[in-house]
Every structure is written in C-alpha cells, then in structure tokens.
C-alpha cells in the first residue's frame, strides 16, 4: 500500500489526558496505578509509551482505549470529555475510532481468521457482503489469503498477530493501540508487525505502542516517547 498525502496539522488532537489518576483499593491500602498523567496524542503521531512491567502502562492503555475510566481527571477524545458518554457511546467510539492489538492476540478461538476479522462489524449490523469484502481485503493485504478459514490454533504467532492487526484495522479507525504487539513473537515476525504498523502510520493513522523494550522507541518513525515509571510520567521525549 502506498503512503497517502495526509497533510496533517500538528494541532489536530485525537486524545488528551488531564490530571488522570487511577486508584485501586486493596484492602485498606489505596494503590495508585496512575498518578497525575497529562499528555495528548495528535493525529498521525507514532507514540511509544515506554516503561517497565508494573509501571502502569497497561492501565494507561485501557484508559486511552476507553475501556476503563480514570478515578480522577479527564479524558478528552477528539476534544470531548469522555466522562459524559454512556457506556454504549464509549463502545461505539471503540468500534469506530479505535483498533486494539494485544500482546496475546486475543483472537476468539472458536472463530476462523475471517470470522475474527468480521467480528466487530457483526455488532453493528454491517451487511454480510461488506463484512466479508473488508475482512478478505485486509487479510489478503497482510499475506494471509491462504489462511482465511484457519482457526487461531492452526496459525503461528506471527500469523495470529496479523489477524489481530487486520481486526484492528477493519473499521478504518484513526487510533491504533498496540500493547506489546511483538511480545509473544520471534524477532522476524515481530519485525513484520512493526513494518505493518509503520505502513498504517504512513497512511495517516495514529499509532500508540506500549512496550518495555527501549529499542522500539529508537525507531526513526516514532515521534513521541512517553516514559512512565511507578504510575507517573518520567519524561516526554519529542523526536523529529
């Protein structure tokens, strides 16, 4: 796929976190997974959120993906305060605007590759032929044309992650959130996944990768690195 001319403007904001705290109550102790988080992600950013395990980066991904709500603070999605949205409206945004890629792929084991990619659209009554066409196109583009009817258990890790990427892209979302996308892959498959993510970014999408691997942040197409430790932002590194 060829890169599009995106004509991005630096100011077009996708998501902004304002003074976000996430507190878990463990018995009598309050545990803060996130403390005083402030940053924003703009359209066509390639962001790496970097931190060791237990630093709160997964919690941050859940909040960015509107899967979880902060205990304190505000999350603005395309300029709108998400705390005002109903649960169903948040689900709607996840469906239309956010694509998830998980470390453990999170494919539905009883569905084949094609069905897994079609799955999100089933909840929004996208006509069957449209579902099928989109899913096929994406899987073909990601080199899985001969694996359409294979169950996840019949696919290699790299192939499963490509199915998961296809599922994330099927609605043409603006924001792709990837949680350690290469964590369970060998280096060759991992590299393939990064190539795909770069291509997505080249096509004008916003990509956020969460990882503990400092090498990821050194890739040249990454324009923002958010260092996180003990639930707090250590520093935000702007590149380019």
């Amino acid at each position: 796929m060829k890169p599009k001319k995106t004509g991005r403007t630096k100011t077009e904001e996708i998501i902004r976190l304002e003074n976000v705290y996430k507190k878990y109550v463990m018995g009598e102790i309050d545990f803060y997974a996130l403390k005083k988080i402030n940053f924003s992600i703009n359209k066509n950013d390639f962001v790496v959120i970097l931190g060791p395990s237990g630093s709160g980066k997964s919690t941050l991904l859940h909040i960015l993906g509107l899967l979880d709500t902060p205990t304190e603070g505000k999350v603005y999605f395309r300029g709108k305060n998400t705390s005002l949205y109903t649960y169903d409206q948040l689900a709607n945004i996840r469906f239309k605007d956010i694509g998830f890629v998980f470390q453990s792929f999170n494919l539905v084991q009883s569905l084949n590759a094609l069905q897994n990619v079609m799955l999100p659209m089933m909840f929004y009554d996208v006509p069957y032929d449209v579902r099928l066409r989109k899913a096929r196109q994406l899987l073909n583009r990601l080199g899985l044309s001969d694996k359409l009817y294979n169950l996840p258990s019949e696919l290699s890790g790299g192939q499963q992650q490509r199915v998961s990427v296809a599922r994330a892209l099927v609605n043409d979302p603006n924001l792709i959130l990837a949680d350690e996308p290469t964590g369970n892959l060998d280096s060759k498959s991992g590299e393939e996944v990064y190539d795909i993510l770069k291509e997505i970014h080249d096509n004008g999408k916003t990509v956020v990768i969460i990882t503990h691997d400092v090498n990821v942040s050194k890739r040249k197409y990454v324009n923002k690195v958010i260092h996180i430790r003990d639930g707090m932002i250590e520093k935000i590194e702007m590149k380019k």
Partner: protein
Amino acid sequence: MDYLMLIPINIKHRSLRSWLTLLGIIVGVIAIVVMISLGDGLKHTVTKQLEEFGPQNIIILPGSLKSMIGMGAQYRPQQGKLYESDVDRIQRIPGIVFTSRMLIVPKCKIRYKGEEIYMAPAGMESNLFTSGIMPQYSPAKGRIFKDNEKNVVLIGHDFAYNVFDKPINVNSYIYINDKKYRVVGIMKKIGGMSGSSGDDQMIAIPYSTARDIVDDLGLMGKNEISAVYVRVADGFDPEDVADRIEFELRSAHKVKEDDFTVMTSEYIMEQINTILGVITIFLGTIAGISLLVSAVGVSNTMFTAVLERTKEIGIMKALGAKNHQILMLFLTESAMLCGLGGLIGLVLSFLLIYGFNYVSVMFNLGVEAIMTPWLAVGAFIFSLLIGVVAGISPAWKASKFNPVDALRYE
C-alpha cells in the same frame, strides 16, 4: 442482530457436559408431549364410543359410583338395589321413549359339546336391540330373540368363535345350568379398547327367562334387576331427564345419599375427565420437576460457559460490543440450546407415539395417541422459555463484566 449468528458456532463448540444437561429438557418434553397425546387419544376414543352410545341414552345402575371416583375419594361405593317398580316409576317421566331392563344371572354353568365354563348370562329385553338405541348391537347371523320366547339365546361374536374349542353356529344348542337353549343369533363383532369388547363375549337370554332362573334359585331379591337402559326422546335434554330420574329414585328408595347411579354420556365424560385430570396432574408434576431440575442444570452450564468465555466477552466488549448485545448473545444461546433439547424431545416423542400407535393397532387396543401440531409448537415454545429463564442470570452476569478484568482473565 447479526452477532446472533455467532450462536450456532458457540453451540457447536460446546462440551459434552452441556449436552448432557439437555437430557432433562428432553425427558421433560417427552413426558409432557406423550402424556398429553395419550390423554387426547384416550379422550378421543372415549368420546367416539360415547357418541356410539348415544347422547340420548341413560343407564341406571344400582349402587353409587360417585363416592369412588374423584380426587381423594375412598373406594366406598354406596350399596343399593334397583327394582322393577323403579322402572315403572321411571317410565312415567315425560321425555322417555322406552326403558329396557337388564338382569344378570350370576355364575351359570354353560356347556357346549362337552366343554363347561361358568359365566353370567344377561337377561335382556329385545327392545334394546330392535330400537336402534345401540346400532352396533345387531346380529351378524340369525336374529334377535323375542321377549316371550323360551330357551333361546343370543351370543356375542367372540363367545361364538373363541370361547369353546368348537365354534357355535346359529341353531346350535348350548346348555345353561343343564337346560337346553337354541342359539338364535350371533352378534356382529364390536371390538373396543381391549381388542375385544366385553359385549363380544356376551350371552344374552330373554329377560323373562333370566327372571325365572333368578327367582327359582333365589339368587337376588324379588323383582330386583341389574340395570336399566333409558332412551330419552329427541328434543329432551338427557341431563334434565336424568335429574328427574334421580329425584324419582331418591323418593322411591327413601334415601339421603344416592344408592344408584344415573349415567348419561355427559356423566361418563365427566368421570373420565376427572380421572384423566388426576393422571395429568400427577404426570405433569413429574414432568414439571424434571424441567425445573433441567432448567437449573442449563443455568449452571450457562454460568460455566460465561466463565469459560470471560476473555472472549472482554474481547467483544473491547471491539465495541454493547452490554445488551452480550446479554442477548447468551440469553439467545441458552434459549436455542433448550429449544434444541425441546426439538430432540419432540422427535423422540413422535417416535414413541408412532411406536405406541403401531402396537395399539397391532393388538387392537383401540386407543391411539394424538400429537396435535399445537402441542408440538407449545412444547417447543415452552422449552425456549425455559432456556430464557435459565439464561437470564448467567447472561446478565456476562453483560456486566468489566472489559478490562475480562481481558486479563486466563
């Protein structure tokens, strides 16, 4: 609602354990369907036979049957007797075309060509046969006796051909209590619930002859009779006439509690419905318990499924599935699972009923179970409903999962 297309895939991937929980639904549906089909068939048969009996006919028997039929009743028939004088009273009631007396001669020795058996011949009046009160009672060979004839006998089809080694023909002689009787007629085969109606084995003699035997031997009271058939004129309500008969007999017998039974076709139908009602409640309770237990089983298996698919639920929610869609997904799956059990139960019920009817025809039992389409539809809808009820709680639980927690579930 496209997401409901996931259900067949989920059902296909279910474990043997969940299929086993369907056994309860299958058994429950079979119990209900077969029971109702049999009840309907029995009612149909009885109604048909009552139609043959004729709505304008009444039978009066000595003793009361009322206390022995019905829920919780003890077997305590009220003793009582009927007399010729009762018949004279009844005959005066308006709306009665005629009456026909019957006198059973208890335990007579009957001999034919050296073979001896003991039976109870019925003394009958010829008008019962000639009036058309019971059209199925007509001779296949020979004729009906006349009331004033002596030493003649009319026999049923099976009595003629099956009771003795050698068949009896018209104009054969048989001996009743060592007296010689000529067979004047052999009745048509009637058949019935047990393949051979009791009446196919009948041996009837003129009422006057029976009276003589009974009086000579002192077997019963003076002028006592065994039963009375009453024919109600068209245009008269047999129930009204029956009430009148009861009134007359009560005042004649001077009793508080009836010591006789006046049977109209409606009365018989009521009694049968009462008996069927008791059986239905009994079997219905068993079927109901079976379905209740299986509903708990299905609920349990749905909880397991929700737990097993926690991660899947998290994935679907992350991808944009809404709570009510997850609820519907599991609720519908539970309903479909039970519906499937219901369908299997229906197919097995159909086979059972088909088998029963085949045997029934083969042995001429006279009863056929009837499975009506509405019964099949009703049983199916009922099993779906059980699925819905059993699925509500697990589906609700699934819909309320926090997506983050669900995604972390391993």
